């Protein structure tokens, strides 16, 4: 049983990397996890999602403004991208970069579209990670 679970966790983890959801930063987080902080990775991910929620809201509001303040949007997205890099959210980061390109081009529609992608990737990753942590926790107990 345990071994099965462990295999499951391992393959889940591998998939996250293989499918491009996570990058090396996630491994760094795992390396930092130790006896002093046994749930370090999960803590960081939780922090990320909590912290970035506000930023997401800000971007949403800014997108609704007319005329679009691209500079502000770019600034927000820059911050958000920085946050995404903390957990190694690879796909999310990619969308962020795309978003910023649209900002630079002054393409409001492109920004809005890409932002939806950002949110989608965020949600997907969150789901996957939650499942992953859940199962990983079970292997420990």
């Amino acid at each position: 049983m345990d071994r099965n679970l462990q295999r499951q966790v391992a393959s889940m983890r591998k998939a996250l990397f293989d499918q491009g959801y996570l990058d090396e930063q996630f491994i760094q987080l795992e390396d930092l996890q130790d006896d002093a902080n046994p749930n370090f990775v999960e803590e960081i991910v939780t922090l990320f999602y909590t912290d970035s929620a506000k930023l997401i809201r800000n971007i949403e509001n800014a997108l609704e403004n007319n005329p679009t303040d691209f500079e502000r949007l770019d600034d927000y997205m820059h911050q958000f991208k920085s946050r995404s890099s903390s957990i190694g959210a690879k796909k999310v980061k990619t969308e962020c970069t795309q978003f910023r390109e649209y900002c630079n081009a002054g393409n409001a529609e492109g920004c809005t579209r890409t932002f939806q992608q950002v949110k989608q990737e965020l949600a997907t990753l969150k789901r996957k990670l939650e499942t992953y942590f859940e199962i990983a926790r079970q292997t420990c107990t």
Partner: protein
Amino acid sequence: MEGSFSSPRTDSFPAGLRVLVVDDDLAWLRILEKMLKKCSYEVTTCCLAREALDLLRERKDGFDIVISDVNMPDMDGFRLLEHVGLEMDLPVIMMSVDGETSRVMRGVQHGACDYLLKPIRMKELRNIWQHVFRKRIHEVRDIEGQECMEEIQMMRHGSELSDEWHSFSGGELNSGKKRKDFESKHDDKDFGDPSSSKKARVVWTVDLHQKFVRAVNQIGFDSEFTKTCFFDVVCSYHETEFSDDFHLYLAEVGPKKILDLMSVPWLTRENVASHLQKYRLYLSRLPKDNDLKAAFGVIKQSDLSSQDSHGSLGLQNSLNTQQTDAASGIYGISGNKPITQNANPKFCEGDLKGIVSVPLIESKKATIHDIPDPPKASSSRTGPNHTFGPLEPDVKYGRFDSPVGKQYSWCDVPQIQFKQEHKVNLQIDNGFNHLPSVSSRPFTREREKLGYMDIKPPYTKCSNQQIRQAIPIGSGANSFHVQSESHATSYQAAEPTLSTTTWSMKNHGLSQIFINNMEAAQRNLILGSNSGFASVDGDLLACLLQGDRCTTNVELLNKESLNHNSQDLFVETPAYVYDAQRFDYEYPLETMEYPVIDQGLFIV
């Protein structure tokens, strides 16, 4: 405590390196904290730049290095970087997810010692101690270079003085190294050749930068938009908006002129030029909205002081006098309020014509500018008025008023500055209450680094320059920051250090500054008129040495023998101190002088 670098347990360095991490990203903050702890560093985290600055100021010498993100909501990372660099002179590492060359370049331009890209790897953090180490090394070299210069200058001012100083320094040196350096240099008879002195690459220390800013501001003084500009500059610390005029003003300022004003012998025009470029960049990135509300208040006050400071100054003066030793310290006469107060009136009455020691108040450029012209009444308002505290606000600046004012400007300046700068509190009154509480660390550094300023300015600029130069803290931002601390604590903290470093001849900076200032002041005193300041080295020295009416302010004040005023005023330089001692000064010079110097250094 200094970082482990200077601790006896050097073998454990870099373990225990005290790092301050500033990032609004909580996740990164946590990650970096964990990583740094794994490197055996002592970590403090902060998610707000403002908080970080407060923390740094609070815990002076409490950190070895700062790591900060570039993009932060409450303050631009580059801004923080500059503040830290200027105020605390700590190495700062910038980090960002954005690795664009332009950004990285900006970081370097603003003084970052490194620029890390997020996601940051642990191995990148392991070696950050090198920046701390490097800085320490350079500081030592820088000090040595400056000391050498100062020694040379000392020699130029007369061998007796040097001898006095030399013998005196034997007991006063706080650093054996310095003594050794001095002695060896002394023996080398190298003095006449600055270029032969050991000179490290030019490190723009806080001290040096302040001199630079002072010089820049002084030039700006002469320009019309200086008033507003300087306030803006000064208030930049408080992030008040920046007048576009300032940029224009800066365009007029030339490195040569700045170099001349700085009077740092070993500095070259090229050094100044490149630094000016950086400074321009720094200024250019300050917020440009013309929100003069904050700045305006300050400006107003300064204008007020400059135009009709008497009334306000009177108020301020009383406030000043109510200040603790800091105030008197500023006066450089003594740390005693009463003395200062007494002195004020006397000074006023005395023949202070010559005294033009106008403290350099960044924010009060306008006033200071006026100060050099004694004939113009109320020019030196802010300065003098303050110091005169109880003294009638309506001090006629006439002849002696302005000099008087100027003299006190030493004290006043810092006070005034603080007032304006302190937490964007434009009330001059409050400013006084915020006498500089220089953190011991920067303070010490200031003193050590205080360059020798050979002040021989034209009369009109003399006092200003002297005072300005004497005050290491040139830029408003810098000085204000430092000074806005609770002066009580810092002041006290500074005193002991002062005694050890300030008065040692090795501590050229301060001493020199004082000497220079005093010389100029003395000269005026001697001349007993508002006539221009001639170069004041030889004559003043002679006068001082003779002890003929050459008493330090401290002595003067202490004894309240203000009859000598003109001569005794502001003669508080190490040289003079020694002379004073020779001439039977009664008060302990150290206690007297230190506060002065201390104040002088940090106040302005």
